């Protein structure tokens, strides 16, 4: 330990505590909610507690933004710009999910206090995914998020679909994480260490014979990470799970879990497998050309997601699930180019994606709250039966997801495509554009159903209460504002596109 140094950047166990206040708060809150559940009769009060705790945690994370970078707990996790960005994003996703849950009829009906504790625990795990710097913390936090997600996905009472979705999630998750730790064991064997940095250094100086073993190991590791972000060969759980889970949880998994998965994937790629080669371009180590593989993965993911969404006509949650697979493909474009530009474009896009996708899930929830329906027919003529405001909001979110100007999604995609074109990867850019056009068809179909079709009378009226209305207003405003005044967020993403390398 560098006790002699003026400001040590590698902290031991005790001195790390102050830097981990948001996580410590969340951990204590989880335990407190489980205990309070025994005495509190009205479980929604626990939801209020969770909301308050999450708000405080977000404030605590914000305070760390100006405190400088540190490596904590003997190199287990780091506090750096990149990690804090994702902690904020995950914190906001959890805040939104808790807010939605408080206004959700599905969740209110279950009336269970543990729900809020498990939701907070899931957010805690996601925060660790964004800051883990060794394989052990990466695996532990990823599995933590998985375990809590299985429980949350199966939360709907008396629904066989929910149980099956949860089981399917667990089985896919078990297989993916099993493959991942087998791959990690080879990485450990090749590098002789679990630490991302030590892995990088070992791979950079490794003899050429390592490349085949490294290729196998990373392919297996990618299975676990690809599963978390729902990328192409590991996506099959997503539609069933999103459909079976309560809507706020579907939204939380779509924005929070995906962001956390990307955080881990990006940090692993950029710090363990590559290093900054100067001029904003990263160079891979270990003699394996990952960019080609990631390119294929990206194109396949977005194409598959969009084609499946085109074929999916009935359930809105399934539609959004396929669309979220497609969006994982778009974000992966930023990983393919391996530049600082690509990195900040990914950060920016994930934040924008959070706003517009959570908004879309919120509108689905509003309709389900009033009518109990999640299918496309339940949206017929939504604008003409009291739901003009949510219908307009949904149109904004869906057009933003498509990437139409002047909405936030357009700016996000613009930066991603710009990063790709800068590296002269025209095929990838073309695939992205074609896919965006493709996605317009199914998004526009929903908008047409809401506005151009007349209600047949059996759908029931849709009303918006104040609680959900506030969140809806905020998300719509954010989608619109980020479409024209994106530079503050972009500056923040730019500032956060750095890793603490010790």
């Amino acid at each position, binding site marked *: 330990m560098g006790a002699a140094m003026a400001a040590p950047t590698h902290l031991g166990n005790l001195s790390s505590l102050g830097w981990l206040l948001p996580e410590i708060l969340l951990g204590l809150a989880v335990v407190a909610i489980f205990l309070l559940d025994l005495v509190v009769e009205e479980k929604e009060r626990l939801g209020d507690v969770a909301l308050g705790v999450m708000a405080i945690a977000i404030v605590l994370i914000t305070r760390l933004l100006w405190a400088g970078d540190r490596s904590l707990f003997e190199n287990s996790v780091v506090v750096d710009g990149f990690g804090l960005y994702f902690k904020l994003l995950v914190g906001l996703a959890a805040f939104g999910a808790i807010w939605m849950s408080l206004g959700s*009829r*599905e969740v209110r009906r279950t009336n269970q206090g543990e729900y809020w504790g498990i939701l907070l625990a899931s957010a805690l795990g996601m925060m660790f995914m964004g800051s883990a710097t060794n*394989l*052990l913390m990466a*695996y*532990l936090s990823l*599995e933590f998020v998985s*375990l809590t997600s*299985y*429980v949350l996905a*199966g939360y709907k009472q*008396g*629904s*066989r*679909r929910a*149980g*099956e979705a*949860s*089981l399917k999630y*667990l*089985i896919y998750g*078990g*297989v993916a994480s*099993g*493959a991942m*730790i*087998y791959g*990690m*064991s*080879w990485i*450990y*064997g090749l590098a*002789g*260490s*679990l630490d991302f940095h030590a892995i990088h250094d070992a791979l950079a100086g490794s003899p050429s014979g390592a490349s085949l073993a490294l290729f196998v190991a990373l392919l297996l590791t990618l299975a676990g990470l690809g599963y978390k972000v729902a990328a192409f060969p590991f996506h099959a759980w997503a539609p069933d799970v999103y459909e079976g889970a309560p809507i706020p949880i579907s939204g939380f998994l779509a924005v929070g879990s995906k962001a956390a998965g990307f955080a881990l994937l990006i940090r692993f790629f950029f710090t363990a497998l590559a290093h900054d080669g100067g001029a904003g371009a990263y160079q891979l180590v270990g003699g394996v050309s990952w960019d080609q593989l990631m390119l294929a993965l990206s194109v396949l993911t977005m194409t598959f997601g969009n084609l499946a969404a085109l074929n999916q006509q009935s359930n809105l949650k399934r539609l959004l699930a396929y669309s979220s697979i497609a969006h994982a493909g778009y974000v992966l474009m930023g990983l393919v180019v391996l530049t600082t530009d690509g990195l900040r474009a990914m950060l920016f896009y994930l934040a924008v994606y959070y706003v517009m996708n959570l908004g879309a899930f919120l509108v689905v929830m509003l309709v*389900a*709250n009033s*009518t*109990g*329906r*999640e299918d496309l027919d339940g949206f017929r003529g939504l604008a003409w039966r009291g739901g003009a405001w949510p219908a307009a909001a949904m149109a904004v979110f869906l057009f933003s997801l498509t990437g139409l100007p002047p909405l936030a999604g357009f700016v996000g995609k613009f930066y991603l495509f710009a990063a790709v074109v800068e590296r002269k990867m025209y095929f990838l850019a073309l695939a992205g554009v074609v896919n965006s056009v493709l996605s317009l068809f199914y998004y526009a179909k929903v908008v047409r159903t809401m506005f151009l079709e007349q209600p047949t009378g059996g759908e029931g009226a849709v009303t918006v209460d104040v609680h959900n209305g506030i969140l809806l207003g905020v998300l719509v405003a954010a989608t619109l504002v980020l479409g024209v005044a994106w530079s503050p967020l972009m500056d923040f993403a730019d500032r956060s596109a750095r890793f603490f390398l010790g």
Partner: protein
Amino acid sequence: MEIGLNHYLVVGLLVFLAGVFTVLTRRNAIGVLMGVELVLNSANINYIAFSRFGTGGLEGQIFSIFVIMLAAAEAAIGLAIVLGIYRKFQTIDVEEVDSLRG
């Protein structure tokens, strides 16, 4: 021939392949989960072998303790889900409930 690192890694690989085969061919959920347990054990054999012969010290053994712990947690949740589905089979007509609710 002296028993070295590769001997253990080959045992790990064989167990891993058996696990993958199980996962691919089983249709029964519990069967698939047993395949997953095989994969987890194969990884553990690797970790402990690397811990013994490699330069990482006890790290490998500690990793495998976490693998065992998380496998137990996963098995508990998996059984709870299976139990839940089983209960629903017996107590309620699921199709009816499903179409009525939102």
